[in-house]
């Protein structure tokens, strides 16, 4: 690999991610304003994340007295690394992808686990009560989404006969998978909301623990962790658009614009619905996951399999 190209790719991805994170913060605020029927101007919404960024950059980085420094520092580093590694496989358009891995989807699912580790490190490393409880919640959180997420996403590679995200998009040129796999699509969106700690599934970082895993994180580290949580939300939503809404496919407009529009629509929907629902406890979330989402994914896989068999005349 050429080192120069690698550096350009790295900084290009970073720049795109920063813009995407800002967009995510704006969409988050817009969804909240819509959910609570609060009239807010778009300019104010767009400026709010920037003002918050300015405050966080200037704020002192307070490290709790008994903190486990190494773990505390590993958290933002790991979170940003996971987001960077994930961003490399999302196809923005035909040929517009850093790495078209032949295990693309599997790679994405794999990389979601270290993100939880990053958040747990932030909570545990602070070595204070609320952070540690938040870390336990984050681990319990993982049990709620891991299996439904994988099973919901598996419908797309079943139909495309490939794990490569590019091939999955190309397989949807006639009909989006989300149209004839609505169950899988819905379950994917719910588990995506759980993964990215969107409300109403934001218990590990919730206010009842003073911020949970982020309770004792401040300043630039808080900025990096919150930012990577938002960036992960963008990436998982973009992946939803790739898997179920045909990715970059669309008439008239260029491919990347279509992907951004679809991703933004998914994010706005998730944000709007999420802020209208009451927050779920860990046990309620596990109940939802194991009693509703998991059987739902089995149904989804069965229906998808039958449809594919009928189509191919097997």
């Amino acid at each position, binding site marked *: 690999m050429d080192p120069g190209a690698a550096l350009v790719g790295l900084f290009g991805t970073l720049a795109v991610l920063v813009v995407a994170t800002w967009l995510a913060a704006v969409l988050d605020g817009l969804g909240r304003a819509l959910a609570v029927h609060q009239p807010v101007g778009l300019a104010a919404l767009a400026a709010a994340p920037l003002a918050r960024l300015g405050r966080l950059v200037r704020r002192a980085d307070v490290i709790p007295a*008994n903190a486990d420094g190494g773990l505390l520092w590993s958290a933002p580093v790991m979170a940003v690394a996971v987001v960077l590694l994930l961003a490399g496989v999302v196809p923005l358009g035909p040929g517009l992808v850093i790495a078209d891995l032949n*295990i693309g989807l599997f*790679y994405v699912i794999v990389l979601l*686990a270290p993100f939880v*580790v990053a958040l747990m490190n932030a909570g545990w*490393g602070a*070595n204070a*009560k609320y952070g540690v409880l938040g870390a336990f919640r984050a681990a319990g959180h993982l049990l709620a989404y891991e299996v439904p997420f994988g099973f919901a996403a598996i419908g797309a*590679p079943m139909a495309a006969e490939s794990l490569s995200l590019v091939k999955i998009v190309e397989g949807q040129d006639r009909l989006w998978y989300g149209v004839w796999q609505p169950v899988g699509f819905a379950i994917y969106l719910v588990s995506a909301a759980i993964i990215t700690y969107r409300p109403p599934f934001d218990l590990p970082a919730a206010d009842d623990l003073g911020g949970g895993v982020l309770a004792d994180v401040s300043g630039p580290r808080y900025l990096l962790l919150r930012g990577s949580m938002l960036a992960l939300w963008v990436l998982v939503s973009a992946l939803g658009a790739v898997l179920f809404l045909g990715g970059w496919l669309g008439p008239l407009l260029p491919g990347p614009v279509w992907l951004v529009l679809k991703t933004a629509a998914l994010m706005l929907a998730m944000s709007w619905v999420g802020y209208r629902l009451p927050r779920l406890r860990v046990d309620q979330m596990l109940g939802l996951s194991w009693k509703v989402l998991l059987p739902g994914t089995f149904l989804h896989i069965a229906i998808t399999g039958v449809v594919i068999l009928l189509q191919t005349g097997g």
Partner: protein
Amino acid sequence: MVEWLAFVLLAVIAVGGSLGMLLTMSMYRAAIFLMASFVALAGLFILLQADLLAAIQVMMNVGGMLVMLLFMVALMMDPGGEMMWDMKRKMGLPGFSALSMSMPRSPPPAEAARPEDRPRTGGSNTDWTCPMHPEVSAPGPGSCPKCSMDLAPRAALQPEAAPAADTDTDTYACPMHPEVQSSAPGQCPKCGMNLVPREAAQEPSATTYTCPMHPDVQSPTPGKCPKCGMDLVLQAELQAPAPAATTYTCPMHPEVQSSTPGKCPKCSMDLVPQEDPQAVAGPTAYTCPMHPEVRSSTPGKCPKCSMDLVPDESAAPMAGHAGMQHGGEGGMHHGGDGAMPRMSPAAHYKMMVDMAMSTALLPWAIAIGVVSALLLSWVLLRATWPLSPTGPNADDVSVVGELLLSRYMIGFEGAAYLILAGVIGAVLLGKREHRR
């Protein structure tokens, strides 16, 4: 060139991670080190063009280690970072640096001896009885000959017979909502947590709260100072007298006692000042962290769970405990904690477990863990692994799909489900046991 750099870096991380896992004293750190090592190995696999193996390596090991962390909470009685904090406090460790194997370099500052030293069980009534059959009487802990329930001190079962009992003795409160009070144990109507006994009510006279800055401000209840808005603290805590003759002892061998600092003759650890000579000399000095009814005058093992007995902190004044949990000692400081009812270590642990949504039920969890481990090894041995150098072609999508859906799925997903079934089973059984 980039490949070589990456190779060296990943190899260093892999080896360093495994070394770190062996050397660190914290279970959590060990798990994180192990994960780092596995992820570095996955990176090496990628350099060898074995993407699929690398991905499986990361998914299974990182996901698996996260479940292991949950097990750690359920099985190891690890109360979290607080435990490390407490260890640090007791042993005077200089800090949990990355490869910390270090023992104390210097004795920690002597703790102020606490006044009002009175055992919680109180009185001369050391009779043990069955909660169901009051006619059963025994001189010590054991099980009831009629119903095999664990015996408990009679004084603890009959609070109205205990001296100086007041009407608030049986008040239960929610750890999160102090305003929720009930005369019987149960669940909080606001958050569904188990109510815990309000021990603050059991020490009627000794609790006067005062402001650290304005000693003239006195209040019978915790709250804010009207002059400066600081949290009020226990007056007894502020007026703790300096210790008398300090005795030094070994953190590992309590029988080693010395009047001067130095090394333990048995393990060469630095001697530390003994925290409270009176409490150790008292009749019920040691107890099990999990079974508060187990009491012994000598250190040793718990007859129920074989854990090491620890000096009974509940026999020592609770003011010290409250100060430890919510005082200003650094990382534990959070505004608003002042309103929480003060709890015994056992009740506090129970609350932590409650909030972490895990089970404290050892035997069930161990049994299920053993069964899942056996089933897991069987599943893993049954699957035939493509480990030969002429393995499957990872570039062929259909081969990858076939592998994923057949062998790997059987092995790895089977393993994951067994572990998950173990966790869920332990939690469910734990809940049932809890209600019974």
